[in-house]
C-alpha cells in the first residue's frame, strides 16, 4: 500500500523504493540489521522530510557520486543520508537525518537490483505502513527550517521544499 517504487531509477538497473512506517515497535532491531549490512537501506527521520522530491534529489546526488567514485561516505545508502543533510559534517548528518532507537516512525529508502525485493526486509518491521502522501503529517517544519537554516525572507519568494532542495544540490559548493 505505502510502498512507492521507481524502476530503472535514473536509467540504471536499480529500483528505488520509498516506504513510510508509523508506530514501529522494533526500530532498534531494524536498525541493527541495516548497521550489520544484512539489509541495505537508509532509515530516515520523517520529521525532517517535507516531500518525497527532497529524497529523490538526495538519492540522485548520491548515485551520481557513487558511480563516479566520489562518495564521501562508505556505502550508497549512507551517502543518501549524508546527501540529504545540509551539513558537511558526516556524523552530524547521520544524527539529524537518521532514525534513533527511540523513534517510532521511519522513512525507508532503498536502492537495489530488481532481484532483491524489499519485501523480505519490510516483513521484519513491526509497524504500520502509511501512504507516502501523508508524509506532511510527520514533518516538523520548525525543525526543518532550523536544520537547513532557512530564513523567513526566503519563504516569502519560495517554498520550504525549494529552499531545502537548493541546499541539498549545492552543498559541495556553498556551505551555509
Amino acid at each position, binding site marked *: 500500500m505505502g510502498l512507492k517504487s521507481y524502476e530503472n531509477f535514473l536509467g540504471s538497473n536499480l529500483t528505488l523504493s520509498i516506504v513510510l512506517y508509523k508506530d514501529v515497535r522494533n526500530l532498534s532491531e531494524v536498525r541493527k540489521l541495516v548497521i550489520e549490512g544484512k539489509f541495505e537501506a537508509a532509515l530516515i527521520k520523517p520529521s525532517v522530510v517535507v516531500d518525497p522530491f527532497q529524497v529523490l534529489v538526495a538519492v540522485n546526488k548520491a548515485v551520481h557520486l557513487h558511480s563516479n567514485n566520489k562518495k564521501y561516505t562508505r556505502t550508497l545508502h549512507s551517502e543518501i543520508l549524508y546527501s540529504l543533510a545540509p551539513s558537511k559534517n558526516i556524523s552530524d548528518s547521520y544524527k539529524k537525518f537518521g532514525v534513533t532507537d527511540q523513534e517510532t516512525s521511519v522513512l525507508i529508502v532503498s536502492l537495489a537490483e530488481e532481484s532483491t525485493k524489499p519485501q523480505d526486509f519490510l516483513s521484519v518491521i513491526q509497524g504500520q505502513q502509511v501512504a507516502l502522501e501523508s508524509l506532511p503529517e510527520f514533518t516538523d517544519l520548525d525543525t526543518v527550517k532550523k536544520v537547513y537554516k532557512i*530564513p523567513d525572507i526566503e519563504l516569502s*519568494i519560495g517554498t520550504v521544499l*525549494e529552499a531545502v532542495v537548493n541546499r541539498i544540490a549545492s552543498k559541495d559548493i556553498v556551505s551555509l
Partner: protein
Amino acid sequence: MSDLSKATLLKQGAEAKIYVIDFLGKPCIVKERFQKTYRHPDLDKSLTAQRTKSEIRSMLRCRTNGIRTPVIYFVDQIKNLIYMEYIQDSVTVRDYVTAIQNNPDGDTHLLEALMQKVGSTLATMHEKNIIHGDLTTSNMLLRNPPEELNLILIDFGLGYIENLAEDKGVDLYVLERAFLSTHPNTEALFELLLQSYAKDYGKGAVEVLRKLDEVRQRGRKRTMVG
C-alpha cells in the same frame, strides 16, 4: 544522469547550451557550458568549473535574501552541468519590454512599474554584496502573467560577492549599456530604475551612483579617443 544528446535544445547562448528535460517529475533545464576552442583546454576547464561554482553560490545567496532565482536541482561537477528549475511559463524582460514598446497601445505604466521592480531588486542584491556580472534584460525573467512582476534573475556565471561601490557601479553600467542599446529611447525609463534603486538601497546608494557616473565618463572618453 540523463543523456543530453536526446534532450531538447531550448537555447544556444554565447556561453552555454540550455536543454529541457524532465528531472524526477519536474520540468528542468540543464545548462551546459561548452568548450571554447580558442582557450587552452586546462584553462578552459578551470574557468568553466569556476563559472559553475559562481553561478550556484550567487543563486543560493539571492534566494536566502529574498530574490527569486531558479531552484537548483543538481550540479554535476564532473561535466559542469547545472540542473535547475525550468521557468516554463515566462518571458524575458527583454521580450516583454520590446513587446510593449512595439505595441501602439502599449501600457507605459507597466514599463514604469517594471523598472521600479528591477531597481529595487538590484538594490537588495547589491546591499547583500552580490555582483551579477552580466546584467542584461535577457538575464531577467518574468513569470506569466508578467504584470504581476514576478522577477527572476538568471545567468550568474560571472557573479561574485563583493562590497565595493565600484563593482556595483560597473554592474549598473553594464545594464545601462545593454538596456539603452537593446531598447531605444529608454533613457527616462532607466532613470526610473536608478531612482528606485537609490530609494531602496538606502545610504550606500550615493556612493554607487557616483561610481556609475565615473564609469560612464571613462566609457565616454574611451569612445572619443577610440
